[in-house]
């Protein structure tokens, strides 16, 4: 059987993205890593049901998502707390956005209902098409679109972003203008 080495390689290549999806879903790094680990074992056990050459990323994301919801059900609806470790990690990561900005965004993302959160992440960050995302979440393409749209609107509301830049040059330039006149 020649399938194993290549399956292993493909699984490995998908891990970073799978992990980012797990963090987005669970909101916590420790739980996300458990989730990824469980997903790896599940995927390995049923690798025969994966057809080489098809979209392994979508296949793995589906397994991880199923795992997440089944764990949620087992655990009951416990309150999600925010992840202090995450913000810490973020602070060492160079990013074009400030650390506070990133923490605010994560907090906002965590307030979304899970179906909207996964939708906007799959479409906006994981790089899936609406069709693929709908397949992963077992919903209609139209449902996926409306979830993404609701998620985006809600994030904009929470973060008070109008869609355009929220700090225009007006304040500064008007000051400068006034200054130069005096």
């Amino acid at each position: 059987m020649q399938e194993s080495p290549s399956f292993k390689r493909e699984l490995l290549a998908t891990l970073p993205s799978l992990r980012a999806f797990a963090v987005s879903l669970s909101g916590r790094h420790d739980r996300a890593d458990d989730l990824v680990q469980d997903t790896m074992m599940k995927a390995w056990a049923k690798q025969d049901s994966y057809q080489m050459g098809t979209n392994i990323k979508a296949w793995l994301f589906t397994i991880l998502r199923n795992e997440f919801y089944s764990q949620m059900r087992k655990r009951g609806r416990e309150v999600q707390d925010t992840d202090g470790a995450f913000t810490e990690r973020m602070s060492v990561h160079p990013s074009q956005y400030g650390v506070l900005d990133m923490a605010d965004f994560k907090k906002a993302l965590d307030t979304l209902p899970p179906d909207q959160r996964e939708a906007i992440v799959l479409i906006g960050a994981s790089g899936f098409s609406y069709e693929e995302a709908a397949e992963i979440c077992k919903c209609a393409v139209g449902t996926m679109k409306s979830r993404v749209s609701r998620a985006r609107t809600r994030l904009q509301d929470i973060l008070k972003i109008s869609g355009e830049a929220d700090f225009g040059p007006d304040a500064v330039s008007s000051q400068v203008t006034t200054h130069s006149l005096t």
Partner: protein
Amino acid sequence: MKDKSKMNEMSVPRQRRTDDGLGPNSDIGAKLRAFYGAVQDQPIPDKFLDLLEKLDQVEQAAKRKGN
């Protein structure tokens, strides 16, 4: 072009959707990708690599036994 339902179903996956407000000029889209990218860019933890090796070894061993 206005036949949206068909156009969207048929579009190439990589093609950027223009109607979801998450494109390159979208603030929410950029923040989302920064957040996601920050996790994605972290090195893969050793425990994952170890697990993968272990799974592989167990399988190889099982195969040898089977043959």
